[in-house]
């Protein structure tokens, strides 16, 4: 672009003008620096003595005070996470006249090991001056007393108390309640991004897992400040003023620790999970994943040996199987698939098949087989198909409905998506559809894939919490509650302010009768004389409904038979059960998944019954002994 010139440019005149202006600028710079210097002269020379006195007498410091972390209770007020004081022996090196001698005396007095001395000396380097350095953490009460009686002889050495978390129920609750641990660099970065540095200025631990992590903002509280007088060495002499911290709120969980313990006892040493929710609110009454581990290990920093043992264990204790375990839902979703068949009018109540134990598609050589080798015979309608868990019926039904309809409807029930439970450790598992298979394997969807999905197998996986969520939606006629562990807040005086219930988009009902047919079929599964769960639930004082499931983790060759003893243990069937009770007015829903043990009716259904028995013994004792008082249902 050519520059338009109004007149001929006089470069030397411009250069002179610029030089003059530069000189003026330099003079202004001089003048302003002179102003700075004169001000510094006033501060540093004229008022030197004044400021020196103020510096020497500078005694008032503002220190942050950490808030006490909110406690965690179960629904009946049992303390699940508490704060306990721990004591540590700390030294401010600058205040000790002869450090080596002091260390020697302390070594004799407190039985400090050479290793601890070495660690202490290591942490001395790179430490801020006048900052305390810990010589021993987690002193016993006896050690605290021993030092306290002689503390006057040790200037610069003190016992400091701090509250830390303790989880009295240890491995029973790890996956749900989680744990806190020391704030690390990554946490610090998150705190800074959230603009919470000031609030965490004095905080030592932060929630790392489970409820402790998810509800960190409720539990943490707000930092306080303390105005203290210190001497010229930085040691606190007295406290002048305190703006106390606001402690974190005590929270109440939907959990009932007794049911949680019952779940742990039922699973014994089997890998698996049991989830119990209150049917009409989605509140989680129990959620146990086996095996667990002791969360207290993490509070004070787990040793790398212990950690790698947990990490590398083939039983994968670090996983919360209830929310992260991705299992084929198997026959437990047959009621939902049947409901879709009825609602989409592919079948009706009357429609039945003659089950020969084999299912074929036209022009396909592959044969899909029922779990029962000779089939269930004539007259298998939808009710019987659920009662008997007839695979053949569902192969045909899935073929009729097609993957698109199945995938859409199951996603309405929450499969393939996060349930929104208040845990960060949640998987969305996998609800397959055409697009997913294309993206994942770059393959088209085959009809055979649909047939497998029709019995809850194939590419379909779900988490137990998804199963309980979907079952609740089925029982509640389409209303969907987010499974919630948090029940509310503990107020002074013992009252609980309830957290509002959260709902998700409900499922549309085409014909209420269809839903009733399915409920009835699940009732018959438990109560008829042919139902797959009839043995497990024989003679219960309440009426329940449910569905068994046996998930294959291993494809049996076309003409081979599945023989448990011949299959590698990790590839044996998962036993599953979903159920709810009482049938007339449901209060609880139970999901059981036991890994690699075998059939659902044999292994999972009896555990679900144990859970229902435990619940009704606690909340409906009149069912078992007619004279006891009613405690009221958990809603």
């Amino acid at each position, binding site marked *: 672009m050519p520059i338009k010139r109004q007149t001929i440019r006089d470069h030397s005149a411009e250069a002179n003008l610029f030089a003059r202006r*530069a000189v003026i600028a330099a003079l202004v710079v001089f003048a302003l620096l002179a102003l700075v210097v004169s001000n*510094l002269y006033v501060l*540093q020379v004229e008022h030197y003595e004044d400021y020196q006195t103020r510096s020497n007498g500078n005694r008032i410091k503002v220190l942050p005070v950490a808030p006490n972390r909110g406690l965690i209770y179960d629904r009946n007020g049992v303390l699940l996470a508490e704060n306990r004081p721990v004591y540590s022996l700390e030294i401010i090196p600058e205040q000790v006249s002869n450090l080596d001698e002091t260390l020697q005396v302390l070594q004799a007095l407190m039985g400090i090991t050479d290793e601890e001395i070495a660690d202490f000396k290591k942490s001395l380097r790179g*430490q801020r*001056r*006048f900052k305390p350095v810990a010589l021993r953490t987690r002193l016993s009460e006896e050690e605290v007393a021993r030092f306290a009686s002689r503390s006057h002889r040790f200037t610069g050495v003190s016992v400091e108390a701090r509250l830390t978390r303790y989880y009295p129920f240890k491995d029973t609750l790890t996956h749900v309640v989680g744990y806190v641990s020391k704030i690390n660099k990554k946490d610090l970065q998150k705190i800074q991004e959230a603009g919470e540095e000031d609030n965490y200025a004095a905080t030592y631990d932060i929630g790392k897992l489970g409820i402790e992590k998810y509800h960190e903002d409720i539990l943490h509280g707000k930092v306080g400040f303390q105005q203290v007088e210190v001497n010229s060495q930085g040691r606190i002499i007295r406290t002048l003023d305190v703006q106390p911290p606001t402690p974190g709120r005590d929270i109440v969980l939907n959990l009932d620790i007794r049911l949680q313990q019952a779940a742990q006892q039922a699973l014994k040493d089997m890998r698996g999970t049991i989830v119990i929710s209150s049917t009409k609110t989605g509140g989680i009454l129990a959620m146990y994943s086996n095996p667990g581990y002791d969360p207290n290990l993490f509070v004070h920093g787990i040793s790398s040996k212990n950690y790698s043992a947990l990490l590398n264990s083939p039983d994968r204790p670090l996983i919360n199987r209830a929310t992260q375990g991705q299992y084929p839902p198997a026959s437990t979703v047959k009621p939902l698939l049947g409901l879709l068949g009825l609602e989409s009018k592919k079948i009706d109540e009357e429609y039945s098949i003659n089950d020969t134990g084999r299912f074929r598609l036209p022009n396909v050589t592959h044969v899909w087989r029922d779990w029962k080798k000779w089939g269930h015979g004539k007259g298998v309608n939808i009710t019987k198909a659920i009662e008997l868990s007839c695979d053949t019926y569902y192969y045909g039904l899935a073929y009729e409905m097609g993957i698109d309809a199945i995938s859409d409807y199951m996603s309405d029930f929450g499969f393939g998506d996060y349930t929104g439970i208040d845990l960060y450790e949640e998987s969305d598992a996998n609800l397959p559809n055409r697009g997913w298979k294309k993206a994942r394997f770059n393959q088209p969807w085959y009809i055979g894939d649909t047939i497998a999905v029709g019995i809850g197998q194939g590419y379909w996986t779900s988490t137990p919490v998804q199963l309980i969520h979907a079952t609740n939606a089925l029982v509640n006629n389409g209303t969907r509650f987010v499974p919630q562990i948090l029940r509310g807040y503990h107020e002074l005086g013992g009252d609980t302010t309830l957290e509002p219930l959260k709902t998700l988009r409900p499922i549309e009902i085409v014909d209420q009768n269809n839903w009733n047919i399915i409920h009835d079929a699940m009732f018959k599964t438990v109560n008829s004389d042919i139902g797959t769960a009839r043995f497990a639930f024989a003679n219960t004082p309440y009426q329940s409904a449910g569905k068994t499931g046996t998930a294959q983790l291993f494809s049996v060759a076309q003409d081979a038979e599945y023989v448990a003893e011949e299959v590698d243990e990790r590839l044996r069937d998962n036993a599953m059960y979903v159920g709810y009770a009482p049938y007339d007015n449901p209060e609880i829903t139970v999901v059981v998944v036991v890994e690699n043990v075998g059939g659902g009716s044999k292994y999972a259904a009896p555990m679900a019954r144990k859970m229902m028995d435990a619940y009704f013994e606690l909340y409906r004792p009149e069912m078992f002994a007619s004279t006891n008082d009613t405690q009221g249902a958990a809603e």
Partner: protein
Amino acid sequence: MKRSTLRENHLSISHRFHVDLPLLIGLLVLMAVGLVTIYSAGGQDIGLIERQIVRLGIALGVMLALAQVPPMAFRRLSIYAYGAGVLMLVAVLVFGDIGKGAQRWLDLGFVRFQPSEAMKLAVPMMVAWYISKFNLPPRLPHIIIGFTLVVVPTILIAKQPDLGTSLLIASSGVFAIFLAGMSWRLIMLVAGLVGAFLPVMWIFLMQDYQKQRVLTFMNPETDPLGSGYHIIQSKIAIGSGGLEGKGWLQGTQSQLEFLPERHTDFIFAVFSEEFGLIGVLALLAIYLFIIIRGLMLAVRAQNAYSKLLAGSITLTFFVYVFVNMGMVSGILPVVGVPLPLVSYGGTSMVTLLAGFGMLMGIGTQKKLLSR
């Protein structure tokens, strides 16, 4: 004879790498002073020093790279750099990340970027480009457009809100216009207008916390444990340093953590406490040396664009020094401007040394385009 050949040799080496040796030495001395002070202010944390050295290394690399670019290339880039910068400032206000309660960062997916930093160079480039298109001294319409070019980004940045940076950017643009030869009568008029604008800014542009800072500055003793605490503690640190200082690592105000932001914005208080007025005078001498050298390079530059840009970069550097020392010693309100090349921190360091890179490029260009 020998002396002159040595001198020519030295000239040719620095010319080949486009490095102005006196300026480089001044900057390096300053950085060394910074490291020594950060070590003390940061509680003898060697990790802090290592990170600062890495940053200095990167910043020096940027400086050397930019020194190789001919000033005319920057001139051609000016309008694009400015246009892109303004767009990004608007984007920050709309989509920006909020860090420390202010929206300054733009997340481009692969990198988080603070457009206001780039504007510290883009604004003087743009103003210098625009003003130098016409004969100097600039006429009234050009001055008005020049000021508009300055005011738009200044307001956008003040809205983020980042008072310190908007002040630096405003001054960088104004310096370019001043150096171009804006008439004294107009200067008086503008000064009057700015005076009238201040109440408007107070009411409409400043956030509550910024107003609080200014009020506290007016009378720090009213709130000795709240926001006045910083200024009081900082003045005690400086005053108690006296003539000779308490000695390196011996400043009680900093070592006992009475001073806030010790290794960043308030590092000058730590320096004054430990090295006293004598140390401060030496530090000021280094700054003055760099500023005078920068102005010399500007005066010697080949064309109006280079002169205006070089002069503006140098004087903006001075504004850092003056505002930081002023706020730490209590004669200016606390606006969050670091002590250049001494304070710990990375973002402003790269911009500062990038500016010096351009300055060196201008100062060492061959006299090709002369007259």
